Protein backbone atom coordinates (compact mmCIF):
# COMPACT_ATOMS: atom_id res chain seq x y z
CA UNK A 1 0.00 0.00 0.00
CA UNK A 2 2.82 2.37 0.95
CA UNK A 3 4.60 1.40 -2.25
CA UNK A 4 1.53 2.24 -4.31
CA UNK A 5 1.09 5.59 -2.60
CA UNK A 6 4.74 6.50 -3.27
CA UNK A 7 4.37 5.37 -6.88
CA UNK A 8 1.22 7.48 -7.23
CA UNK A 9 2.94 10.56 -5.81
CA UNK A 10 5.86 10.07 -8.20
CA UNK A 11 3.49 9.66 -11.14
CA UNK A 12 1.57 12.78 -10.17
CA UNK A 13 4.81 14.72 -9.66
CA UNK A 14 6.12 13.83 -13.12
CA UNK A 15 2.82 14.21 -14.97
CA UNK A 16 1.96 17.43 -13.13
CA UNK A 17 5.32 19.04 -13.86
CA UNK A 18 5.29 17.97 -17.51
CA UNK A 19 1.78 19.43 -17.84
CA UNK A 20 3.00 22.63 -16.27
CA UNK A 21 5.92 22.71 -18.73
CA UNK A 22 3.42 22.17 -21.51
CA UNK A 23 1.35 25.02 -20.16
CA UNK A 24 4.37 27.34 -20.26
CA UNK A 25 5.11 26.21 -23.81
CA UNK A 26 1.56 26.75 -25.04
CA UNK A 27 1.46 30.15 -23.37
CA UNK A 28 4.76 31.07 -25.06
CA UNK A 29 3.55 29.95 -28.51
CA UNK A 30 0.38 31.98 -28.11
CA UNK A 31 2.52 35.01 -27.21
CA UNK A 32 4.77 34.43 -30.26
CA UNK A 33 7.74 33.03 -28.29
CA UNK A 34 9.58 29.72 -28.27
CA UNK A 35 9.14 29.14 -24.58
CA UNK A 36 11.22 26.97 -22.23
CA UNK A 37 11.76 23.24 -22.57
CA UNK A 38 8.95 21.05 -21.38
CA UNK A 39 11.11 19.92 -18.42
CA UNK A 40 11.75 23.48 -17.21
CA UNK A 41 9.64 23.00 -14.08
CA UNK A 42 11.87 20.08 -12.99
CA UNK A 43 14.94 22.28 -13.37
CA UNK A 44 13.28 25.04 -11.35
CA UNK A 45 12.17 22.61 -8.68
CA UNK A 46 15.59 20.93 -8.27
CA UNK A 47 17.34 24.29 -8.22
CA UNK A 48 14.97 25.65 -5.57
CA UNK A 49 15.32 22.51 -3.43
CA UNK A 50 19.11 23.04 -3.48
CA UNK A 51 18.99 26.69 -2.41
CA UNK A 52 19.95 27.88 1.04
CA UNK A 53 17.40 29.35 3.39
CA UNK A 54 18.54 32.14 5.66
CA UNK A 55 15.28 33.81 6.65
CA UNK A 56 13.15 32.79 9.58
CA UNK A 57 9.64 33.83 10.55
CA UNK A 58 8.92 31.17 13.15
CA UNK A 59 7.58 27.68 12.70
CA UNK A 60 4.00 28.62 11.81
CA UNK A 61 5.14 30.35 8.64
CA UNK A 62 6.91 27.27 7.37
CA UNK A 63 4.01 25.02 8.32
CA UNK A 64 2.00 26.67 5.49
CA UNK A 65 3.62 24.88 2.54
CA UNK A 66 3.60 21.64 4.55
CA UNK A 67 -0.16 21.92 5.24
CA UNK A 68 -0.72 22.65 1.55
CA UNK A 69 1.37 19.65 0.55
CA UNK A 70 -0.55 17.48 3.05
CA UNK A 71 -3.85 18.55 1.52
CA UNK A 72 -2.57 17.83 -1.98
CA UNK A 73 -1.17 14.39 -1.13
CA UNK A 74 -4.30 13.36 0.80
CA UNK A 75 -6.52 14.49 -2.10
CA UNK A 76 -4.30 12.56 -4.47
CA UNK A 77 -4.39 9.26 -2.60
CA UNK A 78 -8.18 9.41 -2.10
CA UNK A 79 -8.97 9.83 -5.81
CA UNK A 80 -9.20 6.55 -7.73
CA UNK A 81 -6.78 6.81 -10.67
CA UNK A 82 -7.89 3.87 -12.83
CA UNK A 83 -11.50 2.90 -13.29
CA UNK A 84 -11.10 -0.85 -13.79
CA UNK A 85 -8.15 -1.96 -11.72
CA UNK A 86 -7.43 -1.58 -8.02
CA UNK A 87 -3.90 -0.48 -8.85
CA UNK A 88 -2.98 2.90 -7.26
CA UNK A 89 -6.32 2.86 -5.49
CA UNK A 90 -5.12 1.71 -2.10
CA UNK A 91 -6.61 4.49 0.05
CA UNK A 92 -9.69 5.30 -2.00
CA UNK A 93 -12.03 3.24 0.20
CA UNK A 94 -11.05 5.38 3.20
CA UNK A 95 -12.85 8.48 1.97
CA UNK A 96 -15.66 9.74 -0.20
CA UNK A 97 -16.50 12.94 -2.06
CA UNK A 98 -17.28 14.87 1.13
CA UNK A 99 -13.79 14.21 2.52
CA UNK A 100 -12.31 15.26 -0.82
CA UNK A 101 -14.23 18.51 -0.89
CA UNK A 102 -12.98 19.28 2.59
CA UNK A 103 -9.37 18.43 1.72
CA UNK A 104 -9.43 20.63 -1.38
CA UNK A 105 -9.71 23.76 0.78
CA UNK A 106 -7.37 22.55 3.54
CA UNK A 107 -4.35 23.91 1.67
CA UNK A 108 -5.57 27.49 1.13
CA UNK A 109 -6.66 27.75 4.78
CA UNK A 110 -3.33 26.45 6.08
CA UNK A 111 -1.51 28.80 3.77
CA UNK A 112 -3.60 31.72 5.01
CA UNK A 113 -2.51 31.03 8.60
CA UNK A 114 1.13 30.85 7.56
CA UNK A 115 1.19 33.94 5.37
CA UNK A 116 -0.63 35.92 8.05
CA UNK A 117 2.19 35.03 10.45
CA UNK A 118 4.80 36.22 7.95
CA UNK A 119 3.17 39.64 7.85
CA UNK A 120 4.19 40.62 4.34
CA UNK A 121 1.49 43.04 3.12
CA UNK A 122 1.46 41.56 -0.40
CA UNK A 123 1.19 38.06 1.00
CA UNK A 124 -1.72 39.04 3.22
CA UNK A 125 -3.44 40.83 0.34
CA UNK A 126 -3.00 37.75 -1.83
CA UNK A 127 -4.46 35.48 0.83
CA UNK A 128 -7.47 37.75 1.39
CA UNK A 129 -8.06 37.79 -2.34
CA UNK A 130 -7.68 34.01 -2.52
CA UNK A 131 -10.12 33.30 0.30
CA UNK A 132 -12.65 35.78 -1.10
CA UNK A 133 -12.42 34.07 -4.46
CA UNK A 134 -12.78 30.67 -2.80
CA UNK A 135 -16.31 31.64 -1.65
CA UNK A 136 -17.27 32.08 -5.29
CA UNK A 137 -15.37 29.06 -6.57
CA UNK A 138 -16.71 26.53 -4.09
CA UNK A 139 -20.37 27.27 -4.55
CA UNK A 140 -20.86 26.07 -8.16
CA UNK A 141 -18.44 23.17 -7.70
CA UNK A 142 -20.16 21.93 -4.55
CA UNK A 143 -23.61 22.21 -6.14
CA UNK A 144 -22.35 20.26 -9.16
CA UNK A 145 -20.91 17.55 -6.93
CA UNK A 146 -24.12 17.36 -4.87
CA UNK A 147 -26.03 16.95 -8.15
CA UNK A 148 -23.80 14.02 -9.10
CA UNK A 149 -24.21 12.48 -5.63
CA UNK A 150 -28.01 12.66 -5.95
CA UNK A 151 -27.88 11.24 -9.48
CA UNK A 152 -25.65 8.33 -8.47
CA UNK A 153 -27.33 7.98 -5.07
CA UNK A 154 -23.88 7.58 -3.55
CA UNK A 155 -20.96 9.75 -2.47
CA UNK A 156 -18.46 7.04 -3.35
CA UNK A 157 -16.33 8.06 -6.36
CA UNK A 158 -15.82 4.44 -7.41
CA UNK A 159 -19.58 3.99 -7.48
CA UNK A 160 -19.98 7.15 -9.60
CA UNK A 161 -17.42 5.76 -12.07
CA UNK A 162 -19.22 2.41 -12.20
CA UNK A 163 -22.56 4.12 -12.81
CA UNK A 164 -21.10 5.81 -15.88
CA UNK A 165 -20.05 2.47 -17.39
CA UNK A 166 -23.66 1.39 -17.71
CA UNK A 167 -25.64 4.61 -17.73
CA UNK A 168 -23.50 6.77 -20.02
CA UNK A 169 -21.00 9.47 -19.18
CA UNK A 170 -21.98 12.25 -16.79
CA UNK A 171 -20.70 14.88 -19.22
CA UNK A 172 -23.56 13.83 -21.56
CA UNK A 173 -26.17 13.08 -18.89
CA UNK A 174 -25.49 16.21 -16.83
CA UNK A 175 -23.87 18.81 -19.11
CA UNK A 176 -24.97 21.75 -16.95
CA UNK A 177 -23.19 20.35 -13.90
CA UNK A 178 -20.09 19.75 -16.02
CA UNK A 179 -20.02 23.34 -17.30
CA UNK A 180 -20.40 24.74 -13.77
CA UNK A 181 -17.67 22.47 -12.42
CA UNK A 182 -15.33 23.39 -15.28
CA UNK A 183 -15.75 27.12 -14.67
CA UNK A 184 -14.86 26.46 -11.04
CA UNK A 185 -11.88 24.37 -12.14
CA UNK A 186 -10.49 27.28 -14.17
CA UNK A 187 -10.38 29.16 -10.88
CA UNK A 188 -8.99 26.21 -8.88
CA UNK A 189 -6.14 26.03 -11.42
CA UNK A 190 -5.42 29.73 -10.88
CA UNK A 191 -6.11 30.65 -14.49
CA UNK A 192 -7.47 33.89 -15.89
CA UNK A 193 -10.01 35.37 -15.44
CA UNK A 194 -9.87 34.12 -11.82
CA UNK A 195 -6.09 34.43 -11.20
CA UNK A 196 -6.52 37.15 -8.60
CA UNK A 197 -4.60 35.79 -5.56
CA UNK A 198 -1.16 35.80 -7.19
CA UNK A 199 -1.82 38.52 -9.75
CA UNK A 200 1.72 39.48 -10.84
CA UNK A 201 1.14 43.14 -11.66
CA UNK A 202 -0.98 43.80 -8.58
CA UNK A 203 0.27 41.92 -5.52
CA UNK A 204 3.62 40.60 -6.87
CA UNK A 205 3.60 36.91 -6.09
CA UNK A 206 0.68 37.15 -3.68
CA UNK A 207 0.78 34.47 -0.97
CA UNK A 208 4.14 33.19 -2.24
CA UNK A 209 5.92 36.54 -1.88
CA UNK A 210 7.92 35.66 1.23
CA UNK A 211 8.56 32.00 0.44
CA UNK A 212 11.96 31.16 -0.94
CA UNK A 213 14.14 28.18 -1.73
CA UNK A 214 12.96 24.85 -0.42
CA UNK A 215 9.56 26.13 0.68
CA UNK A 216 8.84 27.66 -2.72
CA UNK A 217 9.90 24.36 -4.26
CA UNK A 218 7.51 22.55 -1.92
CA UNK A 219 4.72 24.91 -2.98
CA UNK A 220 5.49 24.24 -6.64
CA UNK A 221 5.60 20.47 -6.11
CA UNK A 222 2.34 20.39 -4.19
CA UNK A 223 0.84 22.52 -6.97
CA UNK A 224 1.73 19.88 -9.55
CA UNK A 225 0.47 17.03 -7.34
CA UNK A 226 -2.76 18.89 -6.65
CA UNK A 227 -3.26 19.78 -10.32
CA UNK A 228 -2.99 16.10 -11.23
CA UNK A 229 -5.40 15.14 -8.43
CA UNK A 230 -7.96 17.71 -9.58
CA UNK A 231 -7.70 16.58 -13.21
CA UNK A 232 -8.19 12.94 -12.21
CA UNK A 233 -11.15 13.92 -10.01
CA UNK A 234 -12.83 15.72 -12.92
CA UNK A 235 -12.38 12.80 -15.32
CA UNK A 236 -13.61 10.40 -12.63
CA UNK A 237 -16.73 12.43 -12.00
CA UNK A 238 -17.66 13.39 -15.56
CA UNK A 239 -15.69 11.36 -18.10
CA UNK A 240 -16.06 7.90 -16.56
CA UNK A 241 -12.48 7.61 -15.31
CA UNK A 242 -9.63 6.05 -17.26
CA UNK A 243 -9.01 2.34 -17.81
CA UNK A 244 -5.39 2.65 -18.93
CA UNK A 245 -2.45 5.01 -18.57
CA UNK A 246 -2.92 6.26 -22.13
CA UNK A 247 -6.58 7.00 -21.53
CA UNK A 248 -5.66 8.77 -18.28
CA UNK A 249 -3.12 10.99 -20.05
CA UNK A 250 -5.48 11.64 -22.97
CA UNK A 251 -8.47 12.61 -20.85
CA UNK A 252 -6.56 14.69 -18.28
CA UNK A 253 -4.70 16.42 -21.10
CA UNK A 254 -7.97 17.27 -22.85
CA UNK A 255 -9.37 18.84 -19.67
CA UNK A 256 -6.08 20.60 -18.91
CA UNK A 257 -5.71 22.08 -22.40
CA UNK A 258 -9.32 23.29 -22.29
CA UNK A 259 -8.60 25.06 -19.01
CA UNK A 260 -5.38 26.59 -20.40
CA UNK A 261 -7.12 27.86 -23.52
CA UNK A 262 -9.85 29.49 -21.44
CA UNK A 263 -7.13 31.01 -19.28
CA UNK A 264 -5.01 32.52 -22.05
CA UNK A 265 -7.96 34.09 -23.84
CA UNK A 266 -9.40 36.09 -20.95
CA UNK A 267 -8.05 39.00 -18.97
CA UNK A 268 -8.16 39.17 -15.21
CA UNK A 269 -11.27 40.02 -13.20
CA UNK A 270 -11.17 42.28 -10.19
CA UNK A 271 -11.89 40.50 -6.92
CA UNK A 272 -15.50 41.68 -6.64
CA UNK A 273 -16.11 41.07 -10.36
CA UNK A 274 -14.86 37.49 -10.03
CA UNK A 275 -17.02 36.70 -6.99
CA UNK A 276 -19.98 38.47 -8.60
CA UNK A 277 -19.61 36.42 -11.77
CA UNK A 278 -19.07 33.12 -9.94
CA UNK A 279 -22.04 33.65 -7.64
CA UNK A 280 -24.31 34.44 -10.57
CA UNK A 281 -23.57 32.60 -13.83
CA UNK A 282 -21.89 29.26 -12.85
CA UNK A 283 -23.97 28.98 -9.68
CA UNK A 284 -27.14 29.49 -11.71
CA UNK A 285 -26.01 26.89 -14.25
CA UNK A 286 -25.22 24.48 -11.42
CA UNK A 287 -28.61 25.08 -9.78
CA UNK A 288 -30.40 24.45 -13.08
CA UNK A 289 -28.40 21.24 -13.45
CA UNK A 290 -29.30 20.27 -9.88
CA UNK A 291 -33.00 20.96 -10.52
CA UNK A 292 -32.81 18.80 -13.65
CA UNK A 293 -31.25 15.98 -11.64
CA UNK A 294 -33.90 16.22 -8.91
CA UNK A 295 -36.97 16.40 -11.15
CA UNK A 296 -35.95 14.48 -14.25
CA UNK A 297 -33.33 12.12 -12.82
Amino acid at each position, binding site marked *: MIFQIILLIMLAYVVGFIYFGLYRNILARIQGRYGPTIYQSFYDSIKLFS*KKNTVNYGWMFYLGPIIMATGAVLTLILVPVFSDSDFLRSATSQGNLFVLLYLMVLGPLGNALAVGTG*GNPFGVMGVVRGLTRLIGLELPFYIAVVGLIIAANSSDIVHIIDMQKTGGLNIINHPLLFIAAMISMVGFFGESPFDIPGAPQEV*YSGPRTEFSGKFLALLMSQGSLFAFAKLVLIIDLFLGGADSLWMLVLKTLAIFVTIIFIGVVYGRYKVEQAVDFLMKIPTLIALLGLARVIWFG
Partner: protein
Amino acid sequence: MESGFHGSDLDSSLKCKLEESGMANTHAIMEKAVNWFRSRSIFVVAYGTGCGAIEMPPTFTSRYDAERMGVVGVATPRQADLIILSGYLAYKTLRRVIRTYEQMQRPKYVITLGSCPINGGMYWDSYNTIKKLDDYIPVDVYVTGCMPRPESVIEGFVLLQERIKNGEKAGWQKYDENLKFYKDNQKRVLGGHIDPSYETDWYNLENGGVA
Protein backbone atom coordinates in the same frame (compact mmCIF):
# COMPACT_ATOMS: atom_id res chain seq x y z
CA MET B 1 39.24 15.84 -1.80
CA GLU B 2 39.43 19.08 -3.71
CA SER B 3 36.40 18.95 -5.92
CA GLY B 4 36.90 22.31 -7.54
CA PHE B 5 33.35 23.33 -6.73
CA HIS B 6 33.78 26.14 -4.29
CA GLY B 7 31.10 27.09 -1.85
CA SER B 8 29.17 23.87 -2.13
CA ASP B 9 25.52 24.45 -1.45
CA LEU B 10 24.61 20.90 -0.59
CA ASP B 11 24.01 20.27 3.06
CA SER B 12 27.35 20.18 4.83
CA SER B 13 26.25 17.37 7.12
CA LEU B 14 25.40 15.35 4.04
CA LYS B 15 28.88 16.08 2.73
CA CYS B 16 30.41 14.86 5.99
CA LYS B 17 28.33 11.69 5.89
CA LEU B 18 29.31 11.01 2.31
CA GLU B 19 32.98 11.57 3.07
CA GLU B 20 32.79 9.26 6.08
CA SER B 21 31.42 6.48 3.92
CA GLY B 22 34.10 7.11 1.33
CA MET B 23 31.72 8.62 -1.18
CA ALA B 24 33.27 12.03 -1.68
CA ASN B 25 33.10 11.39 -5.39
CA THR B 26 29.34 11.08 -5.15
CA HIS B 27 29.22 14.50 -3.61
CA ALA B 28 31.24 15.99 -6.46
CA ILE B 29 28.95 14.35 -9.00
CA MET B 30 25.82 15.59 -7.20
CA GLU B 31 27.33 19.06 -7.02
CA LYS B 32 27.98 18.94 -10.75
CA ALA B 33 24.40 17.85 -11.45
CA VAL B 34 22.92 20.52 -9.20
CA ASN B 35 25.12 23.15 -10.84
CA TRP B 36 23.76 22.09 -14.21
CA PHE B 37 20.18 22.47 -12.99
CA ARG B 38 21.07 25.84 -11.47
CA SER B 39 22.47 27.05 -14.76
CA ARG B 40 19.29 26.01 -16.53
CA SER B 41 16.97 27.85 -14.16
CA ILE B 42 17.72 31.47 -13.28
CA PHE B 43 15.09 33.62 -11.60
CA VAL B 44 15.75 37.29 -12.18
CA VAL B 45 14.80 40.35 -10.22
CA ALA B 46 15.32 43.17 -12.69
CA TYR B 47 16.27 46.27 -10.74
CA GLY B 48 15.85 49.06 -13.26
CA THR B 49 18.43 51.73 -12.57
CA GLY B 50 19.56 54.19 -15.23
CA CYS B 51 18.87 53.85 -18.92
CA GLY B 52 19.25 50.07 -19.22
CA ALA B 53 15.85 49.33 -17.70
CA ILE B 54 14.35 49.83 -21.14
CA GLU B 55 16.43 46.94 -22.53
CA MET B 56 14.88 44.45 -20.18
CA PRO B 57 11.27 44.26 -21.42
CA PRO B 58 12.33 43.17 -24.95
CA THR B 59 14.81 40.69 -23.43
CA PHE B 60 12.09 38.97 -21.44
CA THR B 61 9.15 39.24 -23.83
CA SER B 62 8.29 37.88 -27.26
CA ARG B 63 11.10 39.46 -29.26
CA TYR B 64 14.12 37.92 -27.49
CA ASP B 65 12.37 35.54 -25.08
CA ALA B 66 14.88 34.85 -22.30
CA GLU B 67 12.52 32.20 -20.91
CA ARG B 68 13.71 29.69 -23.54
CA MET B 69 17.01 29.55 -21.61
CA GLY B 70 15.24 29.18 -18.29
CA VAL B 71 15.71 32.85 -17.38
CA VAL B 72 12.47 34.09 -15.86
CA GLY B 73 11.56 37.31 -14.10
CA VAL B 74 10.20 37.04 -10.56
CA ALA B 75 8.51 39.63 -8.43
CA THR B 76 10.46 39.41 -5.19
CA PRO B 77 14.16 39.17 -4.27
CA ARG B 78 13.34 36.26 -1.94
CA GLN B 79 12.78 34.00 -4.95
CA ALA B 80 15.50 35.44 -7.18
CA ASP B 81 18.90 34.01 -8.11
CA LEU B 82 20.07 36.95 -10.17
CA ILE B 83 19.76 40.70 -9.87
CA ILE B 84 20.24 42.82 -12.96
CA LEU B 85 21.40 46.38 -12.31
CA SER B 86 20.92 48.27 -15.49
CA GLY B 87 22.97 51.46 -15.24
CA TYR B 88 24.44 54.10 -12.97
CA LEU B 89 23.65 53.94 -9.26
CA ALA B 90 23.05 56.99 -7.13
CA TYR B 91 23.93 56.65 -3.43
CA LYS B 92 20.22 56.65 -2.72
CA THR B 93 19.67 53.74 -5.09
CA LEU B 94 22.67 51.88 -3.70
CA ARG B 95 20.96 51.58 -0.30
CA ARG B 96 17.98 49.85 -1.89
CA VAL B 97 20.17 47.68 -4.06
CA ILE B 98 22.21 46.45 -1.09
CA ARG B 99 19.02 45.72 0.81
CA THR B 100 17.58 43.84 -2.16
CA TYR B 101 20.82 41.94 -2.71
CA GLU B 102 21.01 40.88 0.93
CA GLN B 103 17.43 39.62 0.84
CA MET B 104 18.23 37.22 -1.98
CA GLN B 105 18.94 33.62 -1.00
CA ARG B 106 22.27 32.02 -1.82
CA PRO B 107 23.52 31.15 -4.40
CA LYS B 108 22.94 34.56 -5.97
CA TYR B 109 24.50 36.46 -8.84
CA VAL B 110 24.75 40.02 -10.12
CA ILE B 111 24.77 41.22 -13.74
CA THR B 112 25.25 44.88 -14.57
CA LEU B 113 24.54 46.59 -17.87
CA GLY B 114 26.45 49.47 -19.42
CA SER B 115 29.71 51.17 -18.51
CA CYS B 116 28.48 53.22 -15.54
CA PRO B 117 28.73 50.40 -12.94
CA ILE B 118 32.28 49.68 -14.18
CA ASN B 119 33.90 53.09 -13.86
CA GLY B 120 31.13 55.65 -13.59
CA GLY B 121 30.77 56.05 -17.36
CA MET B 122 29.51 59.48 -18.27
CA TYR B 123 28.87 60.13 -14.57
CA TRP B 124 32.60 59.83 -13.80
CA ASP B 125 32.69 63.21 -12.02
CA SER B 126 29.17 63.20 -10.58
CA TYR B 127 28.80 64.08 -6.92
CA ASN B 128 26.04 61.57 -6.15
CA THR B 129 26.72 58.38 -8.10
CA ILE B 130 29.08 55.56 -7.27
CA LYS B 131 31.92 54.93 -9.69
CA LYS B 132 32.75 51.26 -9.25
CA LEU B 133 29.91 49.00 -8.16
CA ASP B 134 32.25 46.10 -7.44
CA ASP B 135 33.45 47.94 -4.32
CA TYR B 136 29.99 47.72 -2.76
CA ILE B 137 28.47 44.47 -3.98
CA PRO B 138 30.27 41.76 -5.97
CA VAL B 139 29.47 41.75 -9.68
CA ASP B 140 29.55 38.46 -11.59
CA VAL B 141 29.11 39.59 -15.18
CA TYR B 142 29.49 43.04 -16.71
CA VAL B 143 27.55 43.48 -19.95
CA THR B 144 29.23 46.47 -21.56
CA GLY B 145 27.90 48.94 -24.08
CA CYS B 146 25.99 52.14 -23.79
CA MET B 147 23.38 50.69 -23.74
CA PRO B 148 23.85 46.98 -24.48
CA ARG B 149 21.31 45.52 -26.89
CA PRO B 150 19.15 42.60 -25.70
CA GLU B 151 21.46 40.27 -27.68
CA SER B 152 24.34 41.33 -25.46
CA VAL B 153 22.23 40.86 -22.34
CA ILE B 154 21.43 37.33 -23.48
CA GLU B 155 25.14 36.74 -24.10
CA GLY B 156 25.69 37.84 -20.52
CA PHE B 157 23.16 35.23 -19.37
CA VAL B 158 24.92 32.55 -21.40
CA LEU B 159 28.29 33.51 -19.90
CA LEU B 160 26.82 33.37 -16.39
CA GLN B 161 25.23 29.99 -17.14
CA GLU B 162 28.62 28.64 -18.28
CA ARG B 163 30.24 29.84 -15.09
CA ILE B 164 27.53 28.34 -12.91
CA LYS B 165 27.76 25.07 -14.82
CA ASN B 166 31.53 24.91 -14.31
CA GLY B 167 31.12 25.58 -10.60
CA GLU B 168 33.32 28.67 -10.69
CA LYS B 169 33.58 30.87 -7.64
CA ALA B 170 30.75 33.37 -7.71
CA GLY B 171 30.30 36.87 -6.35
CA TRP B 172 28.23 35.86 -3.33
CA GLN B 173 31.11 33.73 -2.06
CA LYS B 174 33.46 36.71 -2.37
CA TYR B 175 30.88 38.81 -0.52
CA ASP B 176 30.73 36.31 2.33
CA GLU B 177 34.52 36.01 2.52
CA ASN B 178 35.27 39.74 2.30
CA LEU B 179 32.23 41.04 4.13
CA LYS B 180 34.26 43.61 6.10
CA PHE B 181 35.72 45.11 2.91
CA TYR B 182 32.28 45.51 1.33
CA LYS B 183 30.59 46.77 4.50
CA ASP B 184 33.36 49.34 5.08
CA ASN B 185 32.97 50.65 1.55
CA GLN B 186 29.19 50.80 1.93
CA LYS B 187 29.48 52.68 5.22
CA ARG B 188 31.92 55.13 3.66
CA VAL B 189 29.30 56.40 1.20
CA LEU B 190 26.05 55.63 3.01
CA GLY B 191 26.89 56.54 6.58
CA GLY B 192 26.73 54.39 9.69
CA HIS B 193 23.49 52.52 9.23
CA ILE B 194 21.55 51.34 6.23
CA ASP B 195 17.93 52.29 6.65
CA PRO B 196 15.30 50.86 6.90
CA SER B 197 16.61 48.29 9.33
CA TYR B 198 15.78 44.62 8.93
CA GLU B 199 13.46 44.66 11.94
CA THR B 200 11.17 47.33 10.50
CA ASP B 201 7.55 46.79 11.51
CA TRP B 202 5.67 47.99 8.46
CA TYR B 203 2.36 48.23 10.30
CA ASN B 204 3.67 50.63 12.97
CA LEU B 205 5.87 53.00 11.05
CA GLU B 206 4.61 56.00 13.03
CA ASN B 207 6.04 54.43 16.23
CA GLY B 208 9.47 54.34 14.67
CA GLY B 209 8.77 51.02 13.00
CA VAL B 210 10.27 48.88 15.74
CA ALA B 211 8.78 45.42 15.89
